[in-house]
């Protein structure tokens, strides 16, 4: 009898733990997320909003958005900004499947369009940054890569993004524009995978975003090429209709697209939209 009760207790306890563990990742679960908006201040309502804001952002935005999140928290007492950084198409799929996100920042228009078409955005997406490709090599550029055409040389182990992901789509556009056919040794699923293969010295050269190259300064050598302007990726941001914090979500999107966001993004190498 006693043992049975103990087991039942353990089962119930485990189940409760599991459930609470799952719930803690969703901002909707926080009971303190009540937005007390005084009638007097409609636009600056964010100043009195508290709670957790969940931002789904492209992997290439990791360092800039982490900084922006901290600044936003400082400017909005009681607000906690949490991020999920991943490939844009992953995030778009997650949002379409009901992931609890308040804001979506995509590395390309195509994935934002998926979310817009599904009717999941609360406002029209705003472009807030642009990014172009650059060549990275291991420190010192041992193979002496100087131009985009050099990447096609047979002795150079080149790693690029697969055409299915935004950075790979940009790589394909540059290939088409220049008429150079690349023969990479690997087509990675994310830009960070390309970067790590160059950093570790496995690859002789890789094509990544300018911002990734800046972020890895010292670990890789950057070789810019003029043809990169033929494939500019534009990053849009939008608050989501399913947001637990609709006002905060709008404020954060405006903050990123505004002067504060611009300053941080520019410092990291992002271009103006």
């Amino acid at each position, binding site marked *: 009898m006693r043992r049975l009760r103990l087991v039942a207790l353990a089962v119930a306890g485990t189940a409760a733990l599991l459930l609470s563990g799952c719930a803690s990742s969703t901002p909707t679960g926080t009971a303190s997320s009540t937005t007390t908006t005084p009638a007097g201040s409609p636009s600056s309502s964010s100043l009195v909003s508290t709670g957790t804001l969940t931002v789904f952002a492209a992997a290439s935005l990791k360092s800039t958005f982490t900084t922006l999140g901290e600044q936003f928290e400082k400017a909005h007492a009681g607000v906690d900004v949490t991020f999920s950084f991943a490939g844009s198409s992953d995030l778009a799929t997650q949002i379409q499947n009901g992931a609890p996100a308040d804001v979506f920042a995509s590395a390309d228009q195509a994935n934002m369009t998926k979310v817009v078409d599904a009717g999941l955005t609360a406002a029209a997406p705003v472009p807030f940054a642009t990014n172009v490709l650059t060549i990275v090599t291991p420190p010192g550029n041992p193979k002496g890569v100087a131009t985009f055409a050099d990447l096609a040389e047979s002795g150079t*182990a080149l790693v690029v993004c*697969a055409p299915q*992901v935004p950075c790979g789509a940009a790589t394909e556009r540059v290939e088409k524009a220049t008429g150079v056919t690349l023969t990479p040794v*690997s087509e*990675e*699923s994310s830009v960070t*995978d390309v970067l790590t293969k160059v950093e570790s010295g496995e690859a002789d050269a890789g094509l990544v975003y300018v911002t990734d190259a800046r972020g890895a300064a010292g670990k890789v050598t950057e070789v810019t090429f003029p043809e990169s302007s033929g494939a500019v990726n534009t990053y849009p941001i939008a608050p989501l209709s399913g947001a637990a914090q609709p006002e905060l979500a709008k404020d954060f999107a405006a903050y990123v697209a505004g002067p504060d966001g611009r300053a941080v993004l520019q410092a990291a190498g992002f271009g103006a939209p």
Partner: protein
Amino acid sequence: MLRSGQQRSAQQRAGLPGWAFAPAALGAAFVVLPLVAVVVKVDWAAFPALVTSDASLAALRLSLVTASCSTAVCLLLGVPLALVLARCSFPGLRLLRSLVLVPLVLPPVVGGIALLYTFGRQGLLGSSLEVLGLRIAFSTAAVVIAQAFVAMPFLVLSLEGALRGRGTRYEQVAATLGASPSIVLRRVTLPLVLPGLASGTVLAFARSLGEFGATLTFAGSLQGVTRTLPLEVYLQRESDARGAVALSLVLVVVAVVVIVVTRGRRTEGV
């Protein structure tokens, strides 16, 4: 009152308390439901086209070839290793056994990093291999290495278990009758543990087929060279979810076949 009644009837049925059945059913559903979800999600009209696309066929072919090669590597190195672990005793044996089983519990991506710093260009062995003109990274060989690394413990574990379970009685008799150690191994030991060896081989093959993390980290991803089925699924998911689901179903079917084969062996063998 109700509880004791249920308990009694449950004990009559299976010797189990009644309350165990609800969580057991939940546990079974937890495992089976996601598999059902894959089947339900498959776009059957497009299925033949999706699994026979160039990319899918290249991935399927590469997966079968690399998994066969890595299973062969596992057999060549894993069988002697299991024999040593099961039949010898020397200081450090227990430590060695634990170390050999590490890839079993290691996150595959960690295995990939470890392999990169072993066979990579700037790894422990990589620079020597480079001198010999051998380039492992981004080659099909890298895929085989990654698969063999994660699959070998499965073979070693099941073969060692079988060897220990059998004991050494027959081998001792054979030896006293004048059989050399090689003949004892070939004519007595291995035939006795054949069921264990077979299920270990199938498990190693299956694990090789499913390898993802170490391959992605260590070998890269290029159609026909290093992009195996799981990597193809991962990539197709980015652009064509239907293709990813169709290929997932192929892998689910392979997994089911493997389980049926190994379970069948186990019940009739040991």
